[in-house]
């Protein structure tokens, strides 16, 4: 029977396991560089709701039903031998792309928030989002040439982080460095899961 045949084919075909990690941080902080250091970059077209602001730019006269416009973003893909594919999604920096974050965050292992010591405030928005959303995250300080070096504890204070949130130094251009960042995130998530939930109320 056709039906049985198609089920057999399906069972024989290998179904990849998939997982995703978000890469967040302010504009120009090295999100794309980090993703490109360790993974194959692929294009993705998505759409953006037309806001009041963009209505003036994209003439919508006569097309009242048009509520979105398409935008391009990239994602990274790492294929492992064990039928596992890990996706890295750089969260769009501009505030008009906030709508995409929920789509990206759902089901994610966690997030890496990249910080630049010259403008740490740029990553507050991402930290706020992940804290509210309950997405586990770590801070990766991208050590730019010429940027002031700080101890992890100074950065923790500057960002008013919870004590358990890891802060790691990295060079987004270096594959090994990026690998360590991702390993830190996955270990952090595994450890925080295996311990009883210490949810602070209030």
């Amino acid at each position, binding site marked *: 029977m*056709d*039906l049985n*045949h*198609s089920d057999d*084919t*399906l069972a024989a*075909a*290998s*179904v*990849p*396991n*998939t*997982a*995703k990690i978000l890469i967040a941080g302010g504009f120009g902080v090295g999100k794309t560089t980090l993703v490109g250091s*360790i993974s194959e970059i*692929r*294009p*993705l*077209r*998505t*759409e953006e709701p037309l806001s009041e602001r963009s209505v003036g730019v994209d003439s919508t006269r006569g097309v009242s*039903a*048009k*509520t*979105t416009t*398409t935008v391009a973003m990239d*994602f990274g*893909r*790492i294929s*492992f031998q*064990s039928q*596992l*594919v*890990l*996706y890295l*999604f750089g969260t769009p920096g501009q505030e008009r792309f906030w709508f995409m974050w929920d*789509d*990206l965050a*759902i*089901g*994610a*292992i966690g997030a890496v928030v990249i910080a630049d010591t010259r403008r740490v405030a740029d990553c507050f928005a991402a930290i706020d989002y992940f804290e509210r959303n*309950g997405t586990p995250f770590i801070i990766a300080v991208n050590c730019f040439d010429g940027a002031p070096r700080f101890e992890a504890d100074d950065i923790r204070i500057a960002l008013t982080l919870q004590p358990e949130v890891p802060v790691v130094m990295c060079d987004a251009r270096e*594959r090994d460095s990026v*690998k360590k960042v*991702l*390993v830190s995130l*996955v*270990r952090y*998530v*595994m450890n925080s*899961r*295996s311990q009883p939930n210490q949810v602070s109320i209030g």
Partner: protein
Amino acid sequence: MTSHDGHGERWLDQEAGPVVRLYALTKGRTLPNGGASFGLIDVVVATGERPSEHFRLGPEHRRILGICRRPIPIVDLTSEIDLPLGVVRVLLGDLTGEGLIKVISAQRQPVPDQSLLRMVLNGLESL
């Protein structure tokens, strides 16, 4: 390409945009029928069934079915087919509604389990 001919800028070829407005492909729909949700890393595959007589397969439906002969995550399908994610989701909704496509591995909600985390950790460490 753009050219200047004294009458301002003209858009030519791909710069002029698609011949068919994207959401014309979905008959104006921006959400899938039946309220199906398709996560970015959900894996879909063609079932090999035939469409019912009343269902008219569009060229984009056919392209999706072709790519989905093997299991593929939706984000890769979207990248390969070069249509916006929302459009792909609407078309996938049509195809799952007809039983031509099924979601075989949904992303873990709300969060991945320990065995998947262990696989990811092992994978990363072996890079």
